[in-house]
């Protein structure tokens, strides 16, 4: 009897953990890092102990600059992980291909322990810059970075470098795009009810949602902005049901953030309700209802880190991408019927945020 109660509790706990972590979590063994560039430097130190620093800080011209990235979901998630991978590929093209710039990546490491193993592995292989692309990787990085003082690490999204000289921090001011969309949503809504489908109340998801809310209320103080955090980054079914609930409640404009919103976008399309996307361009999923998407362009932040590393600074600074520095771009959906009318309003708002005449106050 007791055994089964215990077992059931265990199952529920397991399910809760899995659903909370979203993307292939906890259980997936760390994949061997697929390396983009086949050419490995011949003298890559393979068997050095963690205390001995592997690679040299100065990179002679003949050797490629080597970047490794560890991420919680996959390089084609139409969201957070893809934004970083795409940036690295663009930088690689700019710097002259795989011979000059090597990219290695490990995907689907939702579990920080698996990610820690991958980060340590990359560090021992002598990568110049190792990007821990997920706020859940912080404590792992804090532990590993001091063991590799000659290697540079980057952690996002956060502003915290732990005061360590070899950690860069980066974050996205996602509240800015959220604010722009909030202003547009306020103009589009007829029912004065707007719904937001969020994952877990933290990080850039919370920033985006709060910015969106502030945007709506700046135009229509009497509008209702209802927010549901479904408690998961991966539960597509619940995200879809959250969208349905908003629509039943009278919402005629929806937005949401994180990778599980693909379920919500489908429901918005069925009911012909406007959608605003973030993290990546989501217009392809529902061309008729997606008005615009906020896209993260990490290029400038990463390029700046690389030039600092080449100049001998391995960390200690934090970078923020925003509308003004081109790290966040609002991409309008050309197929959307409203985009043309609403675009002017959005452009004015974007300019206002860029030149500082509009300031966003978050709760």
């Amino acid at each position, binding site marked *: 009897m007791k055994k089964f109660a215990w077992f059931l*509790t265990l199952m529920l706990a397991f399910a809760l953990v*899995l659903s909370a972590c979203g993307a292939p979590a906890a259980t997936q063994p760390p994949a061997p890092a697929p390396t983009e560039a086949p050419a490995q430097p011949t003298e890559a130190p393979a068997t050095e102990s963690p205390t001995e620093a592997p690679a040299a800080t100065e990179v002679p011209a003949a050797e490629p600059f080597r970047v490794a990235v560890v991420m919680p979901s996959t390089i*084609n998630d139409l969201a957070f992980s893809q934004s970083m991978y795409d940036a690295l590929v663009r930088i690689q093209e700019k710097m002259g291909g795989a011979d000059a710039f090597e990219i290695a990546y490990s995907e689907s490491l939702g579990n920080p322990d698996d990610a820690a193993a991958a980060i340590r592995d990359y560090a021992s292989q002598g990568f110049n810059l190792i990007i821990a692309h997920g706020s859940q990787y912080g404590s792992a990085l804090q532990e590993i970075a001091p063991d590799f003082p000659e290697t540079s690490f980057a952690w996002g999204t956060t502003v915290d470098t732990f005061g360590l000289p070899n950690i860069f921090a980066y974050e996205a001011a996602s509240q800015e795009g959220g604010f722009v969309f909030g202003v547009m949503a306020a103009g589009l809504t007829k029912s004065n009810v707007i719904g937001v489908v969020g994952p877990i109340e933290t990080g850039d998801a919370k920033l985006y949602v709060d910015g969106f809310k502030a945007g709506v209320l700046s135009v229509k103080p009497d509008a209702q902005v209802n927010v549901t955090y479904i408690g998961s980054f991966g539960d597509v079914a619940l995200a879809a049901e959250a969208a349905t609930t908003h629509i039943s409640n009278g919402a005629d404009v929806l937005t949401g953030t994180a990778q599980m919103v693909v*379920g919500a976008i489908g429901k918005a399309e069925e009911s012909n309700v406007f959608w605003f996307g973030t993290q990546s361009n989501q217009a392809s999923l529902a061309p008729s209802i997606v008005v615009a998407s906020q896209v993260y362009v990490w290029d400038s932040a990463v390029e700046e880190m690389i030039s600092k590393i080449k100049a001998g600074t391995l960390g200690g600074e934090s970078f923020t991408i925003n509308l003004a520095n081109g790290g966040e771009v609002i991409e309008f959906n050309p197929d959307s019927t409203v985009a043309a009318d609403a675009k002017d309003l959005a452009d004015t708002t974007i300019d206002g945020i860029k030149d500082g005449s509009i300031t966003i106050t978050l709760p």
Partner: protein
Amino acid sequence: MISDLFSVTVLIGILASGIRLATPYLYAAIGETFGQRSGVLNLGVEGQMLLGAFAAFYVALTTGSLWLGVLTAMIVGAMMGLAMAYVTVNLNAEQGISGIGFFLFGLGMSDLLFQKLLGTVETVKGFPKIYISGLSDIPGIGEIFFSQNLLVYGAYLLVPIAWFVLNKTTLGLKIRSVGENPDAADSLGVSVARVRYFTIILGGTLSGLGGASLSIALLNVFQQHMTSGLGFIAVALVYFGAWRPIGVLGGALLFSMINSLQLWIQVKGIAIPSDIAAMMPYVFTILVLVASVSRVRAPSALTKPFEREN
């Protein structure tokens, strides 16, 4: 305001979305009920659902035929069940561990196939809502019961069928006897291996169908690990429902209704932290279980491999 929750719109919303949310749980948990009644615990449900969801989505997307998608999902689930049956019945492997193995296989394989064959999240036109003239127009009732898609109805139809098969047929008697006392069943000429093969393959088929209900009926997208723990909840629901299809139905509905209730609580802006709201379905399920734990009795041979004594 709490009082905002007591309205017809909210009530209809909770019931309608509870019925939808329970659908994939029902397919998987009813399938698992058959397996467990015959003495086999299959923890690979989540993996079977994921592969089923991918197979259905991919076939529906490339061929344009939803029914072909459903069929493929069921075949894929059945193949997973067949492998599980071989491992647990012929090789007498530890059921819990091999189930986890099949879960990991399904998780990794669906991810790999998704990346190689699709590469990015796409949408497909899934099963439409069925409009039943007259019934669908009844206020409230129509929205709750008569405006769902075909696979939703299928899941609820499965419950009385499963009850009938388990309790009123010779096959059901064989399944139950193999789960309670395989030695006695064996001595009376019932093939324990054959019965267990049947139930595990049936379980896999239904799990695959449950996955299909997500990817081509309820959500119409496929994303990596889109089930996110749903298959494990389904296993828990079998325990919750005390190995009876009606109990499983009750558990699935309770869990889903509370999930839709917590969404409404958030939508209505009631001041409860979102984390607490998201926990509600889990907490309630455990509380109900604790309150009713004394009536639970598992099939005696559950998780025990059968070896004929000579």
